[in-house]
């Protein structure tokens, strides 16, 4: 579904992605973790070309991203993206946040789009908020709406860029639950997160990144119990018991 072949990217002199090779199959849930600045956000942002790559090949859903004939807008419609800061449209109601893309891109009649959006809101448990504005919602609710918005185009892939990092602790659970349900429904997902509980329970594979490279790639049980790389051991220690 997604294949990185020797992908490099630079921000000026900073080598953010240094020879990435990665293959994510359809229906797979991959958790990406690593210290800040390791390139994990950049990694998933290249998949829908929010960040274009500088070198190497990147295939998404059968198309190569550097192909000049590729229609990036059409590809992006197949990929849902959930941001750390939610990025809901503040001037639109919850319902319109979700229906905007289907109405404008697929020419879905507003009534039908509204029904589909309502069904998505039901899935994330927020039907009663359909007419509210984003600023009237809590962080956890906003993020769940953002997930519903990401699903509105019926994407094949969902990408999550630290979806719970901007949330108060008591709201993290509700968002992770929605993501877990989504994973169980068979969605292909790449999740950048430090929620190790989620990784352990839901992920098929955990990827550990540092300095723009993938240092470790393993099923969660193996990664958590027996990380091979020294850097990964340190990271896990810090994240699981930050006081020591």
């Amino acid at each position, binding site marked *: 579904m997604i294949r990185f072949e020797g992908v490099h990217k630079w921000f000026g002199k900073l080598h953010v992605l240094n020879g990435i090779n990665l293959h994510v199959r359809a229906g797979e849930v991959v958790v990406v973790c690593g210290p800040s600045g390791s390139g994990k956000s950049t990694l998933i942002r290249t998949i*829908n070309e*929010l960040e274009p790559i500088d070198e190497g090949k990147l295939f998404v859903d059968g198309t190569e991203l550097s192909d000049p004939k590729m229609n990036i*807008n*059409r590809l*992006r*419609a*197949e*990929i*849902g*993206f959930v*941001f750390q*800061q939610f*990025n*809901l*449209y*503040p*001037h*639109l109601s919850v319902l319109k946040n979700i229906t*905007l*893309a289907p109405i*404008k*891109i697929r020419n879905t009649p507003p009534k039908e789009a509204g029904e589909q959006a309502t069904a998505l809101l039901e899935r994330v448990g927020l039907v009663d908020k359909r007419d509210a*504005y984003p*600023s*009237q919602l809590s962080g956890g609710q906003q993020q769940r709406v*953002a997930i519903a*918005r*990401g699903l*509105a*185009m019926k994407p094949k892939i969902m990408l999550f860029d630290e979806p719970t990092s901007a949330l108060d602790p008591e709201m993290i659970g509700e968002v992770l639950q929605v993501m877990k349900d989504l994973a169980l429904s068979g969605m292909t997902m790449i999740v950048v997160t430090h929620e190790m509980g989620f990784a352990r329970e839901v992920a098929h594979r955990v990827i550990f990144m540092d300095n723009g490279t993938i240092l470790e790639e393993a099923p969660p049980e193996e990664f958590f119990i027996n990380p091979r790389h020294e850097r990964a051991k340190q990271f896990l220690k810090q994240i699981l018991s930050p006081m020591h």
Partner: protein
Amino acid sequence: MVGGLDFSVVRENLPYFFLGRYPKGPLGGVALTLYLAVVSLVLSFLGGLILGLLSVSRNRLIKWGSTAVIQTIRGMPLLMVIFWMFFLLPAMLGSGMSADWTIITALTLFTSSYMSEIVRAGILGIPKGQMEAAVSTGLSHKQAMTYVILPQALRNMIPSFVNQFVSMIKDTSLAFIVGVSELTHIATQMNNRTMLYPTEIFLFIAVIYFIMCFAFTELSRWLERRSAWRKSI
């Protein structure tokens, strides 16, 4: 008589102040001032929007070209722009436009270039996550601009727009210099004719300008209050 002032000159010529020689002659006075202001307002809103969008274009040539135009006009006094329009346009177009349209063109060019800076700042002021979120759903850059960025940016721009437009209402008074018979022109004319009541006449038109600007400001405040999502923040 108010405090030694004699406003009878104003009272007796009220229709002239408000309508000019209309209906026997062309429209003038307050009506013409309003006409110039409203037409220029609509045109410079469009002009400012277009220039502003060009100045944030991803195409460098368009971006630099529009910025050059904006900076040039912004670097000139309005009176200069009016003179240019008045003397240059007829030379270029042969016979030229009516004086009214000369003024409208000058005001539009001038105000558009200021407005474009407001538009540019408004667009750049929207967090970049909004554009990213919009294109991530598959919207094109243009669609994202139309449905996500501009609606937010325009609402943030309302106070600056109003500021610019209030100053344009007053700028219409410069039209008197090329003989357009708007309010200031009529006041000067009246003053030259009677010679005795400059204080009364100019006090009167000052009040009229104030009322127009105040009414416009209030109208826009009301519009601003009406946008639902602002209320909810």
